[in-house]
């Protein structure tokens, strides 16, 4: 039995019934693709094909196509990798951490956020593979496989190898978590299907799920344990990504603050991307009753909190650089702020530290247009953050004679565009063929949260529930 809060807004508005939820969400899966969707897919496929051409050229001719030089050996490739992985953190955070904290508002957004996570991690994984130069040999460099040199194994002391394990575990566990969540909804669509293909396809996808009480009991247990496993996992992944830098001896990278700072930044950018995508999905699919202003405000508050953590981390880095008394460290940070890449640094500071502070104003954090705009600003800022960390720490190294400046080529840009093509193509396919909102979970929170169902609430036959837990009467919400 739930404790009814008279203060909190209902999670699902519009007086929806259980049947309305099924209809509202399944309708988009069952309807034929409309022109708007086709146009969106056409755009994402254009990005995919155009970027794919440059990606293929780069793979054929080598990473010399990029603007790297002997001083700056990592630039957009690893920037994009960290950026996409960071974006991929919100989904698991929403579904796992918020599940453990019993935050019921997550039910409306977890499905799409998890899908976004999976697609973002795919985009991220493209980068370390691409930057190897000879990716077809990558399996021997990255996986503990015996090879022709008498089994010279991979180096388990290297954070780059930890990354391989972290990212692949994160991807596969997130995929399983997402799919387990989808099974009951596929069963719902299967049971509604009027076409033979729909019945068969969603029947197979649903794994023959029948919603029996015993299955639900085990299912709930599995979800809870998966959430428990994913929570440290999501925190570990960006921690390990930050180790790629933090365990090196490059001034500007060699910082103990990196793990928490990267994790906060990941959640920050992940929520921004969730908002960007959900605001569009909400508008196109008319899901205003499911993703309410309450949901948007909650996400904006998380952006505000994590954005402030990131801001403090930037300032702490500077303080520690000064306080350490190490002149290389001090130079790296002063150079970041005032050197040739000052524009990247100040873009990052503006987008990540200043702009989220606007969410202190309630009018702004409950305004769709502002939220959408700031969610994009945050993601631009977070891209600059990774660029600043990577390129400005490298471009002026110990020998002034080897100081250099990195300028991207068309291949850098188009390979990045390629990953956008991958991301949006997957996301649009997901939005069309999969239920974008977790129907079963929304139904489970409906009765405690919806105004109409509240008033019609039956309490007389509630006799399984102990006397003191019963809700006798609910007048208004």
């Amino acid at each position: 039995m739930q404790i009814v809060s008279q203060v909190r807004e209902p999670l699902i508005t519009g007086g929806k019934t259980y049947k309305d939820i099924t209809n509202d969400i399944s309708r988009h899966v069952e309807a034929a693709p409309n022109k708007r969707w086709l146009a969106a897919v056409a755009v994402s496929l254009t990005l995919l094909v155009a970027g794919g051409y440059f990606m293929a050229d780069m793979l054929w001719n080598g990473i010399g196509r990029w603007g790297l030089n002997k001083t700056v050996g990592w630039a957009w490739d690893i920037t994009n990798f960290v950026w996409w992985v960071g974006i991929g953190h919100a989904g698991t955070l929403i579904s796992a951490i918020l599940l453990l904290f019993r935050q019921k508002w997550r039910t409306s957004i977890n499905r799409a956020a998890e899908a976004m996570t999976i697609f973002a991690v795919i985009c991220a994984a493209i980068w370390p593979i691409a930057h190897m130069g000879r990716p077809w040999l990558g399996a021997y460099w990255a996986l503990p496989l015996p090879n022709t040199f008498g089994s010279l194994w991979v180096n388990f002391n290297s954070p780059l190898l930890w990354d391989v394990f972290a990212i692949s575990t994160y991807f596969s566990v997130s995929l399983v978590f997402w799919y387990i969540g989808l099974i009951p909804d596929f069963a719902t669509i299967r049971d509604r299907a009027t076409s033979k293909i729909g019945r068969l396809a969603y029947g197979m996808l649903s794994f023959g799920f029948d919603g029996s009480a015993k299955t639900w009991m085990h299912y709930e247990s599995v979800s809870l344990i998966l959430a428990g496993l994913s929570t440290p996992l999501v925190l570990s992944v960006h921690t390990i990504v930050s180790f790629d830098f933090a365990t090196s001896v490059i001034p500007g990278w060699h910082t103990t603050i990196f793990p928490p700072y990267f994790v906060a930044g990941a959640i920050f950018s992940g929520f921004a991307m969730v908002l960007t995508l959900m605001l569009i999905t909400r508008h196109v699919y008319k899901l205003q009753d499911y993703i309410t202003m309450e949901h948007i405000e909650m996400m904006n508050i998380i952006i505000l909190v994590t954005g402030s953590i990131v801001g403090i981390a930037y300032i702490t880095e500077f303080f520690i650089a000064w306080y350490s008394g190490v002149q290389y460290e001090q130079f790296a940070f002063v150079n970041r702020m005032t050197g040739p890449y000052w524009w990247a640094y100040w873009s990052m500071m503006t987008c990540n530290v200043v702009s989220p502070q606007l969410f202190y104003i309630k009018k702004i954090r409950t305004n769709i247009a502002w939220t959408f705009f700031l969610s994009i600003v945050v993601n631009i800022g977070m891209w600059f953050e990774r660029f600043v960390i990577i390129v400005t720490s490298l471009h002026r190294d110990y020998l002034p004679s080897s100081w250099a400046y990195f300028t991207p080529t068309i291949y850098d840009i188009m390979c990045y565009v390629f990953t956008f093509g991958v991301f949006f193509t997957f996301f649009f396919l997901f939005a069309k063929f999969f239920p974008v909102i977790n129907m079963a979970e929304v139904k489970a929170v409906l009765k405690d949260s919806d105004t109409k169902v509240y008033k019609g609430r039956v309490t007389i036959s509630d006799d399984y529930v102990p006397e003191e837990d019963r809700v006798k009467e609910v007048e208004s919400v």
Partner: protein
Amino acid sequence: MEKDKNFIVGVFGDHDILLGAVKKVREEGIKIYEVFNPYPVHHLEDALGYKRSKMPVAAFFFGLTGTTCAILMQVLMMGVDWPMIIGGKSFIAVPDFVPVTFEMTVLFAAFGMVGTFLFTRDLKPYKIPRVFDRRSTDDKHIMAIDIADNKKSPEEIKSLLQEVKAEEVYDKEFTNEENSGSFINYVIDLFTNGVTSSSRQLN
């Protein structure tokens, strides 16, 4: 009466009514075959008298296997098979093995547990579920009572279900084919006869 063929089905529209009904029906000494819900209903497993799920135990042991495999793999590769001095570290540099060990623990636990869940609940792509009422994945809670399991007459059971506020009570009979559905036969039937009466109109 043959087992697993003839059922009485009660349809409920509200999970609180269902919880009360389950309790009452069980108090009357009637054995409930199974309850089907569109979403998980808390306390239902207690009301039905199910034992707690053992999935966490499976997860723990799979996780333990993962930890063991990860430690063995790293120690054998780095310390035994081809020891190499890397950055002046000892061959078996324990702190460096923590991240991979953790990741493999999570990987084994998650996949092992989900595999156990799918296996024990017999969920697989080519499974044909025996559907009592297609509304059970939409908005209704379905209580199925196997007539062969109960001494009480079907009429008594039905009147009891009506008493505990079932919206609908009806008989459901399964054919042998439906009871042990083969995937091939299902697909052939689907494409020859179409999505038949079991499908509802969309509204």
